[in-house]
Structures are given as C-alpha cells and as structure tokens.
C-alpha cells in the first residue's frame, strides 16, 4: 500500500458535511437514530389504533376519545440503529494506480463509517481477499470511528479476489446496509466475472441487505497510456501478457472495460442495488457529490 497518509485533514473536513441516508427502515437491533418499522416509544408519531386491554394507558389519546367516544392509543415509530457492513476488497489489484486504489478504498470505507457512526449506527468492516475474510468488531459511536480508522490503516492489499465466495463467508444476521468497495476485477473472464458480481448482489439482497457498490478504478485503468511492446503483469496472479500497445489495442481495451462497467451497473439496477463508480483520483467531496446525486447522500 502506498505510503501516503490515508486519513488527512482534508478527509475529515469533508466528513463533517454529510450524512448518510438509507431508504430502508430498520428492524430489530438496538435503539439508534434511524426510524424503525417497529412501533416504539420514540417521540415521532406513527399511527392510531383502538385500545385493547393490556395497552399502556398512558398512550391513550384522550382528545380523540372526546371526539369519537372510543379509546385510541397513539403509536410512535421506534428509532433503531442501522447495521452497516463495509466490505473492502483487499486483493492485489487494489494496490494499484496513481492515486492508489487501496488508499481510495480505505478513505471511502472511512467516510462511510464516519457517516454511519455519526448517525449512531453500527458499523462492521470486512477485508476480503484470497478466500480470507477479516472482520472487524462492530463499531458504534464516535469512539468507534477512531477504532475503524485504525483498523483501516492496518489493512494490507495482497492476494486474489473471489467476491462471491468471500461474501458468502460473512454473516448477515439482520437487515442492514452492505457497502462493497472494490475494483470488481477477478481472474475470470468478463462474462464470468459479471455473473459472479450478479450472484453476489442477489445473495446480499436475499440476505435483506441494502447494497451499495462503490466501484473503484484508477485513472490508468480508465485511460491506459501504454506504448510499445510491453509485458502486462497481473498484480494478483503475476501472469504476463506480451502485447504491442497500439492505439488500436487501447481503444479495444476501453471498449471491453466500458462493456464490463455497463453490465455491472445493469445488474445492480436489476436487483435494486446502488452503484457508484469512483475514480481513485477523485476527492471525497466528489464522491459525496456523486452520492447526493444518486440519492445516497445528502447534506447535513
């Protein structure tokens, strides 16, 4: 991983301007600042229903009784904490690019964690690579953010990726939000890879997760400036492909990449997941702006 500082002053300044919103309502879990489908004892009114014996008589709405001569009790939405699973791809391919995709991924994970923890939500970080899954403990509260940052700073990028297989290894015990931060590259062919990504989304949706995919690519991957005869070395596998990089080949590569991105985005839409492409040279501000435009983030 690059030696640059992952979480600097500019990063933290950007964090204070945002909050994360999710469309889901939380069920189960501990109390938090999110509205829950469960009716509870919060101050936010939800509905009325007729009194049945056993109800707390303190919740009877006497004004309604005066008008309707029937006993009604007020129902309130119980605010519960959301559960965020932030899955970071730490394969070798993420340790690439200028700026480094790994740094970018860590910052994105930090930003997401900050916003979630700032809303008193619960956050769990997972680093996946080479069939290996490293889950953090759940972070809560502002204190939890410091721990999350420390955890993110200690991540190492190496090995291969098998997104679907890795995510199957992560326990999802309740509804929540799963954020996948990855370049989505794998050893498989594009078609097989897209199929794997689609399976992952479908699995997460099945596990009642709101899915947000942050697709991180470096500028070199988007606009390859290769020239002459070179050996392209795969950072994950070490395989070498000798090519003479011509403008024709570069154009062809970009077409293949564009097709890949389009397919991933289509799969995400199809399974009601959210997809945000991120370039590693973008600042957190740009990412936030993109998030707001896609409805995922809004100003505080």
């Amino acid at each position, binding site marked *: 991983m690059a030696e640059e500082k992952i979480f600097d002053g500019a990063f933290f300044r950007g964090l204070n301007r945002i909050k994360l919103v999710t469309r889901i309502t939380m069920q189960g879990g501990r109390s938090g600042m999110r509205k829950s489908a469960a009716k509870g004892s919060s101050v936010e009114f939800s509905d009325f229903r007729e009194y049945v014996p056993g109800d707390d008589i303190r919740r009877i709405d006497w004004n309604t009784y005066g008008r309707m001569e029937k006993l009604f009790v007020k129902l309130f939405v119980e605010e519960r904490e959301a559960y965020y699973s932030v899955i970071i791809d730490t394969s070798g*391919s*993420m340790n*690439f*690019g200028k700026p480094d*995709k790994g740094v970018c991924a860590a910052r994105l994970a930090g930003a997401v964690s900050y916003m979630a923890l700032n809303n008193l939500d619960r956050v769990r970080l997972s680093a996946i690579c080479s069939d290996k899954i490293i889950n953090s403990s759940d972070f809560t509260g502002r204190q939890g953010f410091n721990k999350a940052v420390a955890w993110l700073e200690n991540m190492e990028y190496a090995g291969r990726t098998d997104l679907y297989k890795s995510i199957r290894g992560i326990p999802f015990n309740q509804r929540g939000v799963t954020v996948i931060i990855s*370049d989505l*590259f*794998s*050893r*498989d*062919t*594009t078609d097989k*890879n897209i199929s794997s990504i689609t399976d992952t989304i479908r699995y997460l949706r099945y596990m009642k997760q709101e899915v947000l995919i942050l697709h991180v690519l*470096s500028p*070199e*991957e988007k606009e*390859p400036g*290769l*020239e*002459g*005869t*070179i*050996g*392209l*070395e*795969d*950072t*994950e*596998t070490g*395989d*070498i*492909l*000798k*090519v*003479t*990089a*011509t403008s*024709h*080949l570069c154009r*062809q*590569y970009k*077409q*293949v*990449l564009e097709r*890949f991105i389009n397919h991933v985005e289509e799969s995400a839409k199809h399974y009601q997941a959210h997809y945000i492409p991120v370039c590693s040279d973008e600042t957190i501000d740009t990412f936030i702006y993109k998030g707001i435009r896609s409805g995922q983030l809004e100003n505080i």
Partner: protein
Amino acid sequence: MGIVRLWPALLAVLIPGIVILYLLKQKVKNQKISALNLWREAYENIQASTPWEKFRNNILMYLQIAALILLIIALMSPYITGGNSEYSNVLIIIDNSASMSGLYSEDASKLDIAKKQAADYISANDGVRYTVMSAGSTPALIVSGSEDKGRVIDAIDSIEATDASGSLDSGISMAQSATAAWDSYKVLAFTDSSANMQDMNCEVIDLSVHGENAAIQNLSHTVSEDGTVKVMARVDNYGKKQLNTDVNLYVGSKLYDIQNVTAEPGSSSVVYFKNIPRGRFNSALAGNTPYLMAELNSKDMLAGDNTVYNILNGENDNKILLVTEKNTFLEKALMLSGNKTVDKVTPKDLEAAKTDEYNLIVYDGIVPDEFPDTGNIIFINPGIAKESPGWQQEVFIFKDSTNHNQNNKQGKAVLVKAVKCDVTEYIEDYSFSCLDVTGFDTPAWASSFFNTGKGLSAGYIGNYNGRMVAVTGFDLHNTDFPLQTEFPIFMYNLLRKTMSVQIIEKTVYNAGEAVGIQKKKQAEEAAVTKPDGTKEIYSLGSGMAVFTDTLDAGLYYVEEGDDRMYFTVSFPEDESDVSKETLITSDKNTKTETSKTASKNISKKMIVMPVLALLLVLLMAEWHIYRKRL
C-alpha cells in the same frame, strides 16, 4: 526508368537485418496492471485481424528501411527515360546513304543501330510529335508530325539502306523548313558522314566506325588489235592494314580467272586480266550473259563495294548504212566517229540493201517512200515530195519561207546557229553560214539543235515512234561547216545520240541516278529487272519512261519486246572511304551535340539528387521522431 549499375541492389539483404535488429531490440518491459483479463480479451479481439500488429507502432523501423532503400536506389544511379520530353516536336533524320549499310558491330549495320536508337528514343518520350526523314541521295519524308509511336517506329523500321551516295546535307534544307514552323523542337540526326547542321537545335549521333574496307571500282575492258580482250579493275584500300586478297573475274555467271592483289593502306592497285580470247566473250554472249563481274574475295565492313560490273558492248549495234550519191565529208565523219561499220549505197541501190541489218541509216538528200522498219535515221537535206506520205508530214514540217529556195543557186546565205543541247555539246556557241537552208517547224516529238535567224529549225532530233530520228535542213556541200573543227564534234554527238542506244543511253549509272528508257520499235511497255530479281513495268505511251529506283548497286536489265539491254548501277566511290573523319558543324550560337554512343545520351535524366534529397528528409524525420520519444 532505368539504372546505371545493379550491384547496390545486393545491399537489400540489410533490410531483413534492420527488422531483426528491431525484433531483438524489443526488450519487453513488464508493466504491472491491476487485472489482465480485460487486456487479454481486448488483445484477442485485435490479434486475429492484424497479424503484423507488432510492427504497426515501429515507425522508426519503417523510416530506416525506407532510408536504406533510398540509399540503395541512389547508389544504383537511377535515371528516367520516360515522361514528357521538353520538346513538343522531334525531327529524326536517318542517313540511309551507301556507307550506312556498313557494319557497326559484328551483327548490326550502322543503319540498324540508328533505327534501334531512334526507336528507343521514341519509346522513352511521350507527348511528342515525331517527324521522320531519311536522307541519302535524296531526302524523303517518312512520317510527318505523328504522335502515334507505333506508327512512327514502324515507319523507321521501313527505312532501307541504299547504295546511293549522300549525306545528311541533302535533308538539311527540308529539315530547316520543317523546324521553322515549330516553337519547340529537337533534331535527332543519325549519320556517319560529315554534315553542317546550320542553325538547328540538334543532337547528331555519329555512327562512323574506322575499320578495314576495300572497294573494287572501274571495271572496264578493251579489245586488243590481236583480238584478245583485256579487263582492268582498280582496288582501293581504305583500311589501316595492307590489303592482300584475290579478285575473282566472272564472265556472265561463270568464274573466269582469279588474280591476287595487294594494296597499302590508303592506296590503290590495278588488277589486269589479260589475253582473254575474244571467243570467250562470244560464248558468253551466246549464253545471254553479256556482262563482266569482278569481286573481292575477302570480307570487310562494307559489302556493297566489293562487287563491280561491266557491260559488254554488242557488235551488231554498230552498223551504219549511208544512202548518198556522193558525200565524202559525211562518209569520213561517220567512219571517224568510232569503231563502227559504215556501208554506203546510192539511192538507186537502196531497195536492194537490207536495211533491217543496220542500226542507223543516213539518208543524204533523199527521202524513202516508206519509213524504214528498223533502225534510227538521219535525214540530211531531205527532198520534197509534192504529195508526201503520211509519215513525212509528221517528220518534216516545212515552212514556206524565203530561205526555202531549192532551185535558186544564187540564194542568200543564211546564218545557222547552234542551240544548246546534247547534239551541240562543246559547240554550243557555234554558228555557220549556209547557202540553201530549209526551215522547219520543230515537230512535237523532237527538239531543235540548229536554228535559222528567223527562229525556224535547221536541224532537230527526237524519238519518233520509238526510233531516234534526226533531220538537218541543209546540204553539207552548201556550207563550210564540214571544213571546220566543229563538224566532227557535231557528227560524233549526233551519232552518239542517234546510235546511242535504243533503249537506254548508257550502261553505267551511279546509284540514285535516273535511267531514261526510250521507246524502241512499237513496244508499248518496258520492263526493268532489278538485281534482286523484282521487275517493274513502265508504259512507253509518251515515247519515254524514267526509271528512278537505282538505289541498289548491281546489274539491271531493261526489256522492250524482244530487246534486252543490261546496265549496271555502281557503288559510289566516296561512300567506301571509312577512314574519313566525321565533322559535324553548325552555325554559331546554335546548340549542336555530337555523340558517338547515342544510347547512353538519349533522353536520360539522372535522378540521384532527388532521391538523396528524399533520403535527407527521411533521416530528418526519423531524428525528429527519435528526439520526441526520448
């Protein structure tokens, strides 16, 4: 397009070397990428369509290969022969005189080389109007202003060598008048002789070659008093080595004798064949081969001048019949005029005489009733018949003049003046007085050689129905003319003209010289057989025909009815001299180029400099790209 040398093409083997060097140079530098599968997919997509993709980006390699190719081309000294000529008109003059048939190389004559080089020039130049002339004894326009190259080349191929004397000079005036009308032109002249190209813009290809050449000339024969025949010929050596060869003498087609002859370079030798029995000729004549042929027994540059002919004079052509009462002057004059037999009869005995045997009948003071069937006729002072037969009215057109005074012996003397013609050769200015002169109107078939003071003819000669007829209107007794020295000259000329020959005037012609064919007897046409055996027929309707195709030296014969007469066309002496230096001159301020080897000078533009300039541009471009990549 052509090249001067081929060996630099071997350097092309370096081209694969450059390619190999580039392949070796391509040390593959590994570059890490996040994932290979997208690249692999992209690479597989393009690999099928472009197997040479590897080299697509190596512009430096292509530039270096191009530079090497240009260097090789420059070393090969390329030139262009094609393209549009700088001249819109090109006049090609080819000398086809006798000397051009000489050998230029072992298997090609000078004319062959000229034709080939002219054809090469035409093939190499587009957009030009070509005019082609041949120049020898007489210039001939072969093609005028044609852009059809095939037609022009075919026309050039059709130019044939002649044995006529000549040079380019004969065609210069025609060429000048042609070029005067052109704004942009070039004259391309091929010759082996000296010429003055005057003020024309021309390139002269000098095809003269110095080498060994001998010629045999002036074959002649004389009959000695003892009846034997002596034959003589001159052999000229124009080479640089001593000539030692044999001369073969043929009588007709049969070889008679061989004599050895030697001649120093630049000198001549005479070879004699003596004591040939006269009977030999007779037998030869009996075999209908009345000619001699001598030939050199060695080969040299010019074959045409190695053979020479001589025609033998037939003896039965020389008999003269004089019909006169008494005319010693005339008889003596006839006797003196050559080796001829003169028989004399009086008018009374004329009917008994066999006039058919004589070649010439001279009627002195009388006119026969019937026009003789054969022979030529001289009428001297013809009498008058009151009722003249039809033929007399055509032959004698008397004028009723004061001079016509046959019975008046005291008549006034009349001045008779010579008219310039063949009969009065050497006595053109002569005049004499005559007492009794008959004045004639010159008939349409004749021309006058003596005129009276009043413009009438006192003597005329012409071809009357195929017969030479001469008439004089005065009696030789009435003038002192026979006493003058001019008389034998006049008689010799008159006899030569009337005896000359019935069909043609002489037996030896120069190549290119016209041969006049006289009508003899009642022949309607004459046939001329050329040395190659071809025959040309001429109509004798007008009493005469002219044969001009005497461009080949050799033996010819003319046939009119039963009569056959041989004549020979001789190879011109001046064309045999191959040792002459060729001098091409022109007027001042005129561009005239002379070259010996035309093939290397015709319309070639070297293009080495443009190729080198292109090479420099390529190298600069390569340097620029190289710097840019650094």
